[in-house]
């Protein structure tokens, strides 16, 4: 394939992903030696989903220049949509078995009531909210995984981009969107169980005899496959003229308009595409996490996503993956209480508390001293070098040199 040849990083990434997946499988409890615990496999699987979200973030921010601080809302919505089916179908199984214990087969109405009281007892609702109308069907609910975040992105993007909201204002608007959504979901009458969220998502309906050891590997592979496919898709999207147009929009959108491209249309396209990718990532993530609640839509979640991409190096797709994997794994190590506390003169340095400070600090340091992030290190290893273009142009006679380049 000509396209693959022109992008050596593509082959490296796909091959690495494949080798990594095989090694993990061989070391897993379900299908291998058992060196890696099932909960660790789940952590790895979840990390792959976060990498997928970071990939989308890199497309929308690193390439199109839209600093969205709300993409984790789409991720969580995807999780909620798949979670509705998981919880409903699983509860239906349990209720049916329980009622069948009485001897007579239960009527559909009895089953329906049983499911409703099981799921909504905690929030004191006795009727199934209408948004659960599709929850009995996997294909329909899967459709909602794409449609609900996609339509939200369409409405939000259409309003924001048409009004030509850009830069910091757009970022604030996306934060407001995810915060509003989180606050709405926290309410008991939102129809999604308020702050209890959806739980028991690790159990797949119809597969109660399959152990979590095996399921975790299935989801791990599904996440790896999704990441690989998304990498191919996004590499293709940014490789051609489309990629050139969105990078041009990032650098000077007014000029792009005068070339005849509808800047709003392109932004909307990228915004919706990345929202849907995030939603799919969420739909793979939450069955591995087992639980989802409105706290997942907290504004900070989306800010983390941006931090991962910045640390990994925006504008290069593998950078986003490296950043998300590196920071989120490190973060779960530090906050998991496994990192040793360091005794200091004035007290002990407890990593659970101090990790965020460290993360914030490294974000500032990367932004200041390594704007290309970790991905930039790979570039310099590969001998790719572009001059630092900060400083004012020198004017016509010294041509293309910028102040600082000319000095050295």
């Amino acid at each position, binding site marked *: 394939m000509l396209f693959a040849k022109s992008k050596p990083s593509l082959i490296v990434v796909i091959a690495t992903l494949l080798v990594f997946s095989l090694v993990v499988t061989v070391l897993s409890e379900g299908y291998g030696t058992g060196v890696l615990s099932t909960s660790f496999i789940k952590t790895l699987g979840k990390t792959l989903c976060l990498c997928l979200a970071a990939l989308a973030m890199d497309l929308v921010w690193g390439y199109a220049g839209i600093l969205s601080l709300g993409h984790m809302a789409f991720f969580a919505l995807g999780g909620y949509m798949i979670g509705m089916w998981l919880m409903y179908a699983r509860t239906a199984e349990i209720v049916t078995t329980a009622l069948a214990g009485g001897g007579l087969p239960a009527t559909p109405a009895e089953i329906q009531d049983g499911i409703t009281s099981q799921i909504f007892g905690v929030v004191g609702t006795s009727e199934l909210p209408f948004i659960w109308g599709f929850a009995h069907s996997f294909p329909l609910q899967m459709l909602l995984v794409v449609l609900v975040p996609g339509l939200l992105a369409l409405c939000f993007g259409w309003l924001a981009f048409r009004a030509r909201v850009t830069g910091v204002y757009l970022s604030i608007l996306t934060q407001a969107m995810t915060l509003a959504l989180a606050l709405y979901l926290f309410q008991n009458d939102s129809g999604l169980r308020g702050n209890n969220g959806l739980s028991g998502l690790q159990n797949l309906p119809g597969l109660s005899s399959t152990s979590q050891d095996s399921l975790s590997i299935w989801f791990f592979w599904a996440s790896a496959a999704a990441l690989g496919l998304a990498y191919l898709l996004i590499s293709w999207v940014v490789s051609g003229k489309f990629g050139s147009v969105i990078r041009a929009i990032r*650098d000077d959108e007014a000029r792009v308009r005068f070339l005849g491209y509808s800047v709003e249309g392109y932004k909307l396209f990228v915004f919706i595409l990345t929202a849907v990718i995030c939603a799919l990532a969420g739909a793979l993530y939450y069955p591995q996490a087992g639980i989802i609640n409105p706290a997942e839509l907290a504004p900070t979640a989306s800010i983390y996503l941006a931090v991962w991409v910045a640390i990994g190096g925006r504008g290069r797709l593998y950078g986003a993956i490296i950043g998300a994997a590196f920071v989120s794994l490190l973060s779960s190590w530090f906050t998991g209480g496994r990192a040793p506390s360091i005794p200091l003169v004035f007290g002990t340095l407890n990593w659970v508390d101090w990790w965020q400070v460290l993360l914030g600090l490294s974000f500032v340091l990367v932004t200041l001293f390594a704007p290309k992030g970790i991905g930039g290190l790979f570039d310099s290893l590969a001998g790719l070098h572009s001059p630092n273009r900060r400083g004012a142009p020198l004017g016509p006679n010294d041509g293309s040199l910028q102040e600082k380049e000319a000095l050295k």
Partner: protein
Amino acid sequence: MTALLEVSGACVSFDGFRAINNLTFTIGPQELRAIIGPNGAGKSTFMDIVTGKTRPDSGSVMFGEKSTSLLKLSEAQIARIGVGRKFQRPTVFEDQTVTENLTLALKAARCPWRVLIWRKARADVARIADLAAQVGLADHLARKAGELSHGQKQWLEIAMLLAQEPRLLLVDEPAAGMTPAEREHTTALLVDIAKTRAVVVVEHDMEFVRRLNCKVTVLHEGAVLAEGSLDHVTKNQQVIDVYLGRGE
């Protein structure tokens, strides 16, 4: 000969300041026109009106045989029906190569889906090489536009305009930052382009305008002060007072 662009009675004010004052301007389909006038006369604002960047408070802007009103169209739509613009400062996409810059400008479908599946045909490669050769950038196709000299960027932008194949070209101070030899090349190029389409050139440099050898419109305080050949307008007493008299 019917006009390609007809601006009539246009007014624009910024916070009460009249930048364009009842401006009327017409240009034919294959005409070269120079616009001169002192700084702040409203030359750039005039281009903003035609390209949709600024909406006039009143007046009309008609384009083409069917007299389409440009006032209802977005910047992108105006560009698509055939109005190209070169800005005062060269604005090329510095982070992309000369080829990529030209590819972006090349006349082709502009909607996201069509652009997504667009792949370069042999004819496109030839056209890009051709355009680059025309402006002396044939050896720089693979370089990032940001590495070019100021004059080369100006030319790249002119080549991008040509790639768009517009019917009307608005060129704002093309010779700024060019050496005398480059200026001469640019005049020749503009005269050549105007054989097949309408070209409006804003320029300060009188020598440059003289070489264009075309009809000249003098703007002052947002309105047309005089129109005619360069010799004709430079003899106009009003023009001498407001513009030439100040030693420009």
